């Protein structure tokens, strides 16, 4: 069975090559992507969305095969740079250093995501406890150790906070969630910005009792197993967090408002940077200005090498990415993972970047 599949695929491939040669000869670009295989790897946060996309995309584009795997944003970046995969998925945009070293690498936003700050406080998980960047930075650097710390109590009047040690949970693996969480701490807390800074993996300050967990699923189970813990979790896991009856915190934004991640607040964060997004679209949405802007939101990126080895691969990538930022941004896909669509101006910028692939 497998053999037959392989043979028929080989035949199709050969057919595709023949068609291509012909198409090239007569200069018709329209049929240029027959039986092209694209491989995507990277962000585990973006992976569920790719999985929802693939059947519908291949239904309209039967000539393109798309294989998806979930590894990690770091792997997505590294493997697309090396040309091992055509599409790298990442929650973080490429750093200046990488762009300088590899000027052909593009960071193309595909959708908008956010992150929740969750906690497990017996009896209080129904309350949306308020937390700020400096308080979270204090917790994650071991300076705020008790739930009834005066700093936390002061912004949560009426809530009886327990006199219990806080257990901060961080990701051990390289993660876009760590990237945007530490970016929030850096943007809101100068002391964090000058010491720990931000990245997909940071040098977490030593906190007695602090735990490292692997992946978003690991964060959810560690939070559930540890009452009095606090964790940062990608919004695509919001359903699981709700199912486990864990608490969601209201987070203080740049304008001093405490907000939950909703379509309105995350959308406001996206809207606030539309006009400042540069042509290469490498920009942080974290701690965006605006009264309604949720502070921990981000673009989900496709990391693409603009110089592809052949034209049919390049045009297949273009076809897919164009589909992803238009039809793929329909709410019927995005609501399943709690993502939001790109604003129209950003779709235009992404399309301009997509056109550079050849």
């Amino acid at each position, binding site marked *: 069975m497998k053999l037959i599949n392989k043979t028929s695929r080989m035949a199709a491939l050969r057919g595709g090559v023949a068609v291509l040669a012909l198409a090239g000869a007569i200069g018709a670009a329209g049929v240029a992507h027959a039986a092209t295989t694209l491989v995507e790897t990277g962000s585990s946060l973006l992976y569920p969305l790719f999985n929802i996309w693939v059947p519908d995309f291949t239904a309209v584009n039967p000539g393109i095969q798309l294989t998806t795997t979930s*590894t*990690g*944003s*770091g*792997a997505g*970046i*590294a493997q697309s740079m090396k040309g091992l995969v055509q599409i790298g998925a990442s929650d973080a945009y490429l*750093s*200046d*250093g*990488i762009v*300088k*070293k590899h000027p052909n690498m593009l960071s193309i936003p595909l959708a908008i995501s956010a992150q929740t700050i969750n906690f497990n406080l017996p009896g209080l998980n129904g309350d949306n406890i308020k937390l700020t960047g400096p308080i979270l930075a204090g917790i994650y650097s071991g300076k705020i150790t008790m739930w009834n710390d005066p700093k936390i109590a002061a912004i949560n009047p009426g809530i009886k906070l327990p006199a219990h*040690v806080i*257990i901060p949970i*961080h990701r*051990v*693996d*390289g*993660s876009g969630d760590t990237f945007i969480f530490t970016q929030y701490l850096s943007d809101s807390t100068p002391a964090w910005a000058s010491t720990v*800074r*931000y*990245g*997909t*993996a*940071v*040098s*977490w*300050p*030593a*906190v*007695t*009792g*602090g*735990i*490292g*967990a*692997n992946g978003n699923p*690991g964060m959810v*189970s*560690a939070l559930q*197993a*540890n*009452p*009095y*813990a606090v964790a940062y979790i990608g919004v695509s896991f919001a359903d699981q967090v709700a199912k486990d009856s864990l608490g969601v915190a209201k987070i203080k934004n740049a304008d001093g408002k405490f907000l939950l991640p909703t379509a309105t607040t995350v959308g406001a964060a996206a809207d606030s940077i539309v006009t400042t997004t540069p042509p290469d679209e490498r920009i942080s949405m974290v701690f965006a200005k605006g009264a309604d802007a949720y502070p921990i939101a981000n673009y989900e990126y496709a990391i693409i090498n603009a110089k592809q080895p052949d034209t049919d691969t390049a045009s297949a990538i273009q076809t897919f990415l164009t589909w992803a930022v238009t039809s793929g941004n329909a709410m019927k896909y995005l609501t399943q993972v709690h993502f939001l669509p790109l604003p129209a101006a950003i779709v235009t910028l992404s399309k301009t970047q997509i056109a550079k692939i050849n």
Partner: protein
Amino acid sequence: MGAVMKIKPFRLSLLGLSLLIPAALGAVVLFLLLYAGQAISFNGFGFLGGVNWNLGNLYSDPVMTRGVQVPSGADYGILVFVVGTLLSSGIAILMAVPLSVGAAIFLAEAVPGTIRPVLSMLVELVAVVPSVVFGLWGIAVLIPLIGTYLAPSGNGYGLLAASIVLALMITPIIATTLLDALLRVPRENRESAFALGATHFEVVTKAMLPMVRTTLVGGIVLALGRAMGETMAVVMVSGGAINILPHSVFSPVSTIASFIVTQLDSAQSDPTNMAVRSLAEIALVLFLITLAVNACAKLLSSGALNVRSRQH
């Protein structure tokens, strides 16, 4: 004349094949040395003694430090992971040895020959359970148990959980090697000990165990190698410590292997490559530790401690 000149193709091909394994090993060491070379000279001896591991700021321009381009603030110290590796596998061995010696003696001495194959097969089966399954069991069963009943902070992730999971994974390795050796102890030894009026306990401890000491040490070394190199199960239950040394069995730890696998993704986005090179240097350290353990075991099993060598 003809006999001297005769080329023996069979022997030669065997020689070639047998050299493949040491060649592969040599290639790995060579690769690690070459790849980690720059990191070794950058990190110096502080590498082993440093508690802090910091990839530096990957989102700003690299800076020139000690003659090489590295991300600003980059500082690689691996004491936490070396300690985590040695402690977790050490405690695992302490738990696994009595368990597996007991199991092997039970299977060799207390079980009828007809049931023995079935039971020993069950023990062997435990050895082939994928480590991720042990990790899942650890998360679902062990961590809530430790968190609820043992840990003062209520947190089950840490050194103890990692050690217990490792102990379970290596127990069958020691038990099956020991069982095979016990079954090969000559019947005469056993029976003459009984004839001298020894109790069953004395027969086992005085007549049989001394004869299988070498095998036991060998089994422990194999198990230790497995425990120190185990990755996935440790990642899942150890609580992934960074920049902090454990102060009790309930403290989160990281082992060398678990740390390499969790850091590699981010290290790859370091434009100067120093992070990946430093990870290669950690791998080299792990390699040297396992080598040292093996050398010690060879000394223990062949040297002065091995008073009786009547097995062969």
